[in-house]
């Protein structure tokens, strides 16, 4: 009889999660929406929808459009605001034994600081994920994440406000993602997660109008996975902190690619829309792979990529 392989990973700071599979921000609501369809306790962690200081209405519809093996979205960070989250959404999540990671967003450094401070004091939040990579808002988001200096600055501010682990979510919409990753590591990030969506556009050729109300949006889904794997591979080779891989993962096989190139953990996003059980199926698929390959600990798999001479 074989012993079940170890799947727990440390994703930065002192946060150890029981398996490397999380649900990505913006694709899993505040957890409750999916709670009748899968056991939240079987997730490594869940990342809630991006929270801002004040509630945000979001962008005008249409907000999504399907593209080949992918989808565009331009939600515009619609959310209930951090205070309502703490008062009305977080109590439900405290009833589960799963780390809750709060994704945070600000239009200014002061807003990032205030949101981080509120969540730090709330209790029931295991880590913060700093969104400096949303392509669909005019202020904040990518405005901070496009340059190393501003990315470092936001990270420092959040780092200085909280003792929770700080994960910084990076954008692929930059010329060299490793420079941003190094900058946020210098700024005190405990981990980086990547990639956010790729800025993209699609057109209704009959009406000659953009398919999205916001004109442009963020591309997600299987279509972006090779780009994400490449960027994760680049980033793991230049930073010391854990890297969390995100981008088009729909199966355990997809998740394994990220682990092999060196991601410590993963986030499953668009796949939640295809099958609400995606994340839990990926967890068991990873376990099966470890057993099949006689690996006792997922650590033996992470970063095991070999490049033939």
């Amino acid at each position, binding site marked *: 009889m074989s012993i079940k392989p170890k799947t727990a990973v440390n994703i930065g700071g002192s946060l150890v999660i029981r398996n490397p599979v999380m649900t990505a921000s913006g*694709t*899993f609501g505040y957890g409750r929406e999916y709670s009748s369809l899968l056991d939240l306790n079987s997730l490594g962690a869940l990342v809630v929808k991006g929270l801002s200081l004040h509630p945000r209405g979001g962008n005008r519809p249409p907000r999504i459009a*399907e593209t080949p093996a992918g989808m565009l979205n331009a939600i515009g960070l619609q959310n209930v605001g951090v205070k309502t989250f703490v008062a009305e959404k977080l109590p439900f999540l405290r009833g589960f034994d799963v780390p809750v990671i709060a994704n945070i967003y600000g239009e200014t450094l002061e807003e990032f600081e205030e949101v981080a401070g509120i969540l730090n004091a709330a209790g029931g939040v295991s880590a913060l994920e700093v969104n400096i990579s949303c392509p669909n808002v005019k202020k904040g988001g990518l405005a901070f994440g496009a340059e190393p200096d501003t990315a470092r600055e936001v990270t420092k501010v959040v780092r200085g406000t909280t003792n929770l682990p700080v994960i910084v979510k990076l954008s692929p919409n930059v010329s060299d993602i490793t420079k941003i990753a190094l900058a946020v590591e210098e700024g005190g990030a405990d981990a980086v997660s990547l990639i956010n969506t790729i800025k993209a556009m699609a057109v209704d050729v009959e009406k000659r109008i953009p398919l999205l109300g916001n004109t442009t949006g963020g591309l997600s889904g299987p279509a972006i996975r090779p780009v994400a794997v490449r960027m994760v591979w680049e980033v793991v080779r230049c930073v010391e902190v854990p890297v969390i891989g995100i981008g088009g993962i729909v199966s355990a096989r997809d998740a394994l690619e990220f682990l092999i190139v060196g991601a410590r953990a993963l986030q499953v996003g*668009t796949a939640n829309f295809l099958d609400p059980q995606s994340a839990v199926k990926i967890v068991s698929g990873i376990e099966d792979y470890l057993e099949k390959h006689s690996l006792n600990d997922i650590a033996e798999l992470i970063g095991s990529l070999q490049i033939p001479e």
Partner: protein
Amino acid sequence: MQNSGKIIFNRELAGKHYHLRLILEEPFLKPRPGQFFLIRLNDRLDPLLGRPFSVYDCHHQGRILDFVYRVVGRGTGLFSKLKKGGELSLLGPLGRPFNIFPEAKTLVLIGGGMGAAALNYLLKEYTKGPAGARSICYYLGAKTAGEIIGKAVIERRCQVMLTTDDGSKGRRGLITDLLEEDLESLAAQGAVFYACGPRGMLRRLFELISPYKVSCQVSLEERMACGLGACLGCAVEARGEDDLYRRVCCDGPVFEIGEIVW
């Protein structure tokens, strides 16, 4: 709520419309009129997302589901090629159903084009018992005679007022024009209104019906991803005091007409 459905038939009706009948293979919930299922082609990543289909009819407490859809793009084009015995992934029943008023004496249904599909199951639920003193007027509009959905079934159950854009059946013109002539008298009878159809039809209906203090429920369509209220992709602008947007998938798809910004 997650299920697998085996295709009993997938028949072509006229005018790019198809009638799909599925039998569910897992435990299921009986859908209520106005609810929908997110249906996905198995084992494919392209097209990626499920398609929201409102329930056209159901049998055996919801184990057998009927949907009527129109081929509008690549996704529904692939649906139209499905054969008997094939399997589909389903999520549902989803969404806020139509509010039923068992005591209502006069019902008015307004269906435009594909919108008639969502109203079919509602009409069935209202007409399953003895008719009693209730009268049902169905204002049914279509582009052309061949695109009228379920006319024979509707005519057995209620009084039908018909228009087509080209005049090939019923009166030539828009269904809202026909309704406008009768609206004052219907409202005076305390009629309850239900509508589903193109955005332009619903907008016109809103203009016509606003002066009257009547209940008018409309079923909306929007592009959708999760179907569960998580992704906020199916937003529709609302007249709420706090929320700017409502989610068609779980705050709707049925709304009171006055809740929405037309």
